């Protein structure tokens, strides 16, 4: 906001840049699975919990409970909408209202590259949310399923 400053962006997220170029490379050590973007580590993790905690938690909160102010962030906990697996995948891929898109074809950055999640990462975080926070959906989704919903996404 500031005004301003969008333009003063200099720090390129190394992590985001590497995530973009490495895309599907999912080699990782246990340490990397916990590495956050803010730690300047390559954010290549395909651990759903780690992705949730470093990205989604900012709005949907640690307990998946969402939040209410002048507007609200929907609770993911005990959310029956999540039964529609593809709906959730498409929301993450393409964004919805003020929620940004995370798919390579849809993400928008400002003054720098956007944060992009590849198909494997999107599958991982969707599966994590749909099987935690009081959700017990067992029809896990694969990276290939994500790709089918948005061909050429990563």
């Amino acid at each position: 906001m500031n005004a301003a400053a969008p333009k003063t962006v200099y720090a390129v997220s190394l992590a985001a840049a590497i995530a973009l170029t490495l895309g599907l490379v999912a080699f990782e050590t246990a340490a990397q699975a916990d590495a956050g973007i803010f730690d300047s580590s390559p954010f290549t993790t395909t651990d759903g919990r780690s992705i949730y905690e470093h990205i989604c938690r900012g709005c949907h909160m640690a307990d998946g409970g969402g939040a209410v102010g002048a507007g609200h962030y929907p609770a993911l906990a005990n959310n029956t909408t999540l039964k529609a697996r593809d709906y959730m995948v498409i929301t993450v891929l393409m964004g919805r209202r003020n929620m940004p898109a995370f798919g390579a074809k849809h993400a928008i950055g400002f003054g720098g590259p956007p944060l992009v999640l590849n198909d494997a990462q999107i599958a991982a975080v969707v599966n994590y949310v749909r099987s935690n926070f009081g959700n017990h959906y067992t029809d896990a989704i694969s990276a290939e399923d994500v790709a089918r919903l948005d061909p050429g996404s990563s």
Partner: protein
Amino acid sequence: MTDESAGSVSRRRLLTMIGQTAGATAMYQAMHSLGFAAETTFKGPARIGTAPKGASVLVLGAGIAGMVAAYELRNAGYQVQVLEYNGRAGGRNWTLRGGDTYTELGGATQECRFDTGLYINPGPWRLPYHHRGMLSYCKRLGVALEPFVQINYNAYLHSQKAFGGKPQRLRAVKADYTGHVAELLAKATHARALDAEVTREDQERLLDSLKFWGALDRSGRWVKGPESSDRRGYDKDPGGGLSARPVFSEPVALGDVLKSGLWAPLAFGDSYDMQTTMFQPVGGMGMVGQAFARELGPSIRYNAKVIEIQQDERGVSATFEDRAAGNRRETVKAAWCVCTIPLSILGQIPMNVGAPMTAAIASVPYCTGLKVGLQFKRRFWEEDEQIYGGITYTDLPIGQISYPSSRFFSEGKGVLLGAYIWDQGNAMDCSSMPPAERVAKALEYGSQIHPQYRQEFDNGVAVAWHRVPSALGCFGLWTDEGRAKHYDNLCAFDGRIVLAGEHASYLPAWQEGAVTSAHDAIERLHQRAASAGASA
């Protein structure tokens, strides 16, 4: 990963490609050259005449756009009522001072423990000299302005990967970059490499100008000596008496300057909206919102959470919950409505407008931004490093450190901006942390530039814009495609409702966008009201 059809690359796509190959800075520069940073359309005070008798307007949101609209409409004779979610006016125009408490979404409460007179602006913090709308309101409302230091030659440019991670003074990087480029161009001219581009006569002039511009020596070289030290600084400054003799400094080699990447932030102060002179309100940006609030007095109803907006052929009604009275519901009505609620929130409020405006509201995601304010026991950046205002740019996740542009040389504590994060991934990750952890991270990274951090830290606050209850995001993140499809529909009247705010402008994130969109909206409103006559 690419989807554009051959031969037609959209502007946004082009920007993204530039961003991916050349990094954020190149994209940032490209954004400017492609016209993203447009000039204000402010043309002076709002040109509306006298309100039709009894005409009324409901203004939703007491941010800059809402209060500008309310102020001008009231002055024109309209009956104006403003509904505001927060218990204060200003919206994103906001200053956190000692004694303030702030509760973010998720419930974490921070108490700002800055000393008297010290503050941080979590949102907008500077005003370009050509944002005449904002500046004129400051003048009209008696908000004192002082210079905002954008470029400080003695602040640092820092890369973890260059010069062993040691911060470099902007002055030296700029001088070395310019000096080397000037020398190269001079050599190319002498080698007749520019014969096809520049006449012989102009080549002489070019050589003179390069010597002057790049501070080259008599032989046209950028080398250690009086000329170069006059730009990049000395190892020992000239003085008086027996110890007077200066010691010249050694320029950094061209390859090292280029490899460092530190040339990238050099151009920031050259962009139109960062050019000197910039201003800030004395005492914090929030002084503007406070001044408007004083003007509007009881016209603003605070703690009012709008939950529904309905219109018919006679007027507009808004239902709200009074947060100060157990969420008791009330409905207010007026002939017209200027709605400045951020799209991040408006999209969730039932409102009977047509499909075009509804689609436009739903089309804009919100940028993730975050600021951390840090109070230190003394102004070590001034005392130890002679940095007076300005900004240090770094490739660390904190993005930048900005030093206060006021109260120079004062004793006691000082507050600086310890992180200002735009990078989307970093901003999201940092927003996901509890506030205390954000502050701890800003300290950890910042101490790589200022080791005094560890010794001198006192307290801090961190504001993540996606956690701000009245905003749910930083500002509207438009794309070219989105603008082409939705922007006009967002700004056009729908019945008796018109939207205003930075989201309804081509100056994203800037308060000037809020001012100019408000003026545009109320001028159109007045035309409609005037033609409808007293029945409006």
